């Protein structure tokens, strides 16, 4: 029993670390690698929870997560980076130190919120829930502090990882929900990929500040 939760906490911690490190990376390639690692650990966590809870659906979740998020999406992202020649692209929107301090504060908020509010529920999954909420908030923060559209997508995907982490940690979460979330993410990725192509065609860059400038003038 204690091994189950220790391992689950360890993997949750690694996922949180990956999400946090994404904030500190200026290069897209490094962010994608971190995302891949995050997804990999997530799939392992799902498999482990499936083993611990004796739930077939969680094995399936783990496999889907592995195939989709640890293999397919990083590959697609790398393709985009290569095709758009953004290997050397450097993010400049916000000082890294500042965004990391904000990220730390968000983790604090998540712990502060989850631990007292779930005092009455199952004690051992509370930390998992706190970690999952931290990952979600960090993903949102990533979407806000980055100006590059691809970095924002990575933030979005990372946020979704947090949701899946919360879902697999909770016993009794229906499989359909996880599956549909995964499908939605894939669809969103496709749509955004098309959008990125269009933006690229028009502006020769994925830096959204140009788009914002035009938006401001146009209205």
């Amino acid at each position: 029993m204690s091994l189950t939760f220790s391992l689950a906490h360890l993997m949750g911690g690694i996922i949180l670390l990956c999400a946090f490190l994404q904030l500190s990376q200026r290069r897209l390639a490094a962010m994608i690698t971190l995302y891949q690692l995050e997804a990999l650990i997530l799939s392992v966590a799902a498999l482990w929870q499936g083993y611990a809870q004796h739930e077939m659906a969680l094995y399936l979740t783990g496999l889907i997560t592995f195939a989709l998020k640890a293999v397919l999406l990083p590959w697609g992202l790398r393709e985009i980076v290569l095709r758009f020649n953004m290997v050397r692209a450097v993010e400049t929107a916000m000082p890294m130190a500042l965004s990391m301090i904000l990220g730390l504060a968000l983790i604090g908020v998540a712990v502060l919120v989850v631990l007292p509010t779930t005092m009455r529920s199952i004690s051992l999954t509370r930390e998992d829930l706190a970690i999952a909420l931290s990952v979600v908030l960090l993903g949102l923060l990533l979407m806000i502090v980055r100006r590059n559209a691809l970095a924002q997508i990575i933030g979005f995907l990372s946020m979704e990882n947090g949701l899946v982490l919360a879902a697999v940690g909770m016993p009794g979460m229906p499989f359909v929900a996880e599956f549909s979330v995964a499908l939605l993410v894939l669809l969103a990725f496709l749509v955004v990929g098309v959008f990125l192509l269009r933006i690229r065609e028009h502006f020769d860059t994925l830096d959204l500040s140009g788009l914002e400038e035009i938006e401001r003038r146009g209205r």
Partner: protein
Amino acid sequence: MFGLPGQGMHLHLDALSLLFGCILLPQVVAAAVAGMRASVAFWVFVLGMALALLAGDQFTLIFGFELMSAASWLLVLQGDRKPATLYAGIAIFSGACLIPALFLPASSLAFVLIALGAGAKAGLAPLHSWLPRAHPAPPAGVSALMSGGMVKVALYVLIRYAFINLASAQQPWWGEALVAAGALSVLIGALRAVLEVELKTALACSTVEHVGLIAVGLGLALYAKASGDAALAGVALQAALLCAVAHGLFKPLLFIGAGEVKHATGTTSLNWLGGLMRGMPRLGALMLLGLVGMGALPLGPGFAPEFLLFHAVIGAAATGGILARIGFSALLAVLGIGAALALAAAVRIIGLGFLGRPRSLHAAAAEDLRRGPLVAMVLLGALNVPVALVPGLLLQLMSPVILLLAPQAHTLPLTYAPLTLLILAGFAALAAGFVQTRWGVRGLQEAPAWNGGFGRPPAWLPFGDPHTQVSATGFAEPVMRVMGKGLLGVSKTDPAERFLFVPLFRVQTRLVRLAERVRRATIRERLAFVFTVLVVFLLVLGLGEGG
């Protein structure tokens, strides 16, 4: 019909609503005869006023009141768009104050809300500056009914709540606050009535003044009622109610007349009128009657209420503590200035609009009254006569209302008897005529006419050079110099506008800019906003649970 769930709508008639209904009735008839018969909005307006007066429960009252506001807004909108918007804003403000106030338990808060809501609708300072803009905008019949009737309905709500429904929680400062607002209205209304060039605007400003007079009377009565002064309460109520009756008769008369001036000459600007008495003698005579009332000249309908009001203020100044004495003495001075200015305004309208030489071709070619307005004005003018000549009788008829409002009030018989005065003056005139015919110089004597300082107009200017006459602006200039600059400032705008509307506009502009900024926010900024809200919410949740 419909109403609050489980309660329905109730009508209720007592002496107070009967009195205000009687004030309303001749105006409605006159306005309908004067040409508003065919307008649906007009009849809805009348229905709303009647419903508000006859209401037996809060819902009916507020329903009638808002019906009146909405219909009159439509009617103002027919005239002009900008004042209609301003009017809608004031009506909404007044509704927002009245609706909670009607359902509150008797307390000072309820009174303040009622005074704000009904006062804004009645044009009581400092919420009066919409009135000189909105009242002149619609057709004359509606202007007449708005100025003479709608304002009275708002005052009716104020009276009913301040004197009857909230009587259990009465405080002396209610009356003092009402007196202060009324004194302010008298001063600003009378001053602007002298300064305004447009005839209808000047009349609307005079309405502000008369509302102020009524409010002073009501405030005095409230004050006397709270401090237990029976005689003062009686006199002050007599003054306020008689003023309401008189104003409800001569102001519609003047507004319908102003509408006829506009119809005949195409303008109501006093700077383009003049000499109308020659082309429109009947209108001139009827307007003169109304203006005698507006200027509160003796033997006119407006004199008795002012006389009573001065009595009440003098009575109040003679009692109470040193501060009250000083305050009421100052009030006496303010009312005196107001009366003088009102007289100046009346003289200015008759002197510049109806006497002298025409200032434009239209004024020279004006034709007399059409039939409908003539009937309306004659009706109102005829009703003015009893108010002017037998006010004592009217006050006796009103005594049930006064007893309803202040059960302990003593009502004294009026010491001013205009009918006797008129008969005596008639005898004196007869005697003078007799003396003149008996011992006067016989035969004709020719002498050059003085003609008010004017020579005969030159042949190439058939009715004289208009610019050799004093204009309306010029006539008001001394008043402007003595009082206007101090009270209205160099820009000549109403202080209420400067201190109330301009800051409001500024706030609105700022809010619009803020909204625009939000609308133009980039995706990241919007995300950041939502994110911040989320984090704050989580923090509150966590801290609330943890603490």
